[in-house]
């Protein structure tokens, strides 16, 4: 078991494996995305009534919620790989963390953007200092900090480890930060706003939202692996690894 893992922890073994997986992930992205969008735009009611009256702009939910979820999940995964890299000193783990960060930052930005475009029609403002939004903004800063630190150091080995340490410190702080902006007054913390409740959602809306979430998740796999392959090539060829040449020779025809 452990042996197996470490075999794929070698970049040379991982590179072709990732190459084969990427197309699969692309199909897993495109098909649910199309289904989710079609369902979301044509199978759902034109207007929400009841206590939560919303007009067509509620359709932003189909991308807003998935991007928000992905942004948080990807940070956890990124910090996780960073920790693995620091503990086991595997090059591939650092590269993995490195490959996830830009995708995570993109999703965070999209959550902010789509949220803003939702907020304008429903709250009358693009931005408000709601705890959820604030926390998402801070998450964005953490991603940017990771990327900035990594690219400011040009010795890749040092950059990897420094950025990994930062990601872990960030991961420890994230719950504290989220909690502090959610609950700025510890005397009244019990009266936190009711969180949105998935079970109370209209079935069609929920279905589209979850399908698109799945699509975005697969999209993250695909882009991360693509970026990872580029990183592997860049670093291994810089280090003069011979497998790069043989592998590329095999692929060269395509």
């Amino acid at each position, binding site marked *: 078991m452990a042996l197996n893992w470490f075999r794929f922890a070698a970049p040379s073994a991982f590179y072709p494996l990732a190459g084969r997986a990427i197309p699969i992930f692309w199909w897993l992205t495109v098909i649910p995305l199309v289904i989710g969008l079609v369902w979301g*735009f044509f199978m759902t009611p*034109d*207007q929400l009534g009841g206590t939560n009256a919303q*007009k*067509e*702009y509620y*359709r*932003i939910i189909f*991308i*807003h919620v998935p*991007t928000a979820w992905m942004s948080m999940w990807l940070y956890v995964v990124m910090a996780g790989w960073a920790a693995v890299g620091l503990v086991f000193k595997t090059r591939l783990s650092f590269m993995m963390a490195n490959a996830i960060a*830009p*995708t995570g930052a*993109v999703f965070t*930005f*999209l959550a902010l*953007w*789509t949220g803003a*475009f*939702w907020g*304008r*029609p429903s709250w009358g403002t693009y931005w408000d200092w709601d705890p959820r939004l604030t926390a998402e903004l801070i998450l964005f800063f953490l991603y940017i900090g990771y990327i900035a630190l990594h690219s400011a150091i040009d010795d890749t080995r040092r950059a990897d480890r420094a950025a990994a340490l930062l990601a872990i410190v960030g991961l420890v702080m994230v719950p504290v930060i989220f909690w502090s902006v959610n609950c700025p007054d510890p005397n009244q913390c019990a009266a936190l706003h009711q969180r949105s409740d998935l079970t109370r959602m209209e079935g069609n809306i929920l279905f589209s939202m979850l399908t698109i979430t799945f699509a975005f998740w697969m*999209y993250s796999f695909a*882009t991360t692996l*693509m*970026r990872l*392959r*580029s990183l592997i*090539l*860049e670093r291994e*060829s810089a280090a003069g690894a011979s497998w*790069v*040449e043989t592998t*590329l020779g095999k692929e060269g025809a395509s």
Partner: protein
Amino acid sequence: MIAFLSQGGYAFFVWGAYGMTLILLVAEILFLRYKRRTILARIGRLIRMRHSGVKQ
């Protein structure tokens, strides 16, 4: 069709949100492909150099 595009009068917001998502995701993919191509070109050049016996 017009009705679909206007999204009940909220076209700007709905398509603004979807549009930015589309732009960023596609841009990410294009950027990744562009990066991969430049790396392959560089490595190809290195390999050719090595095979034709040019010293680094």
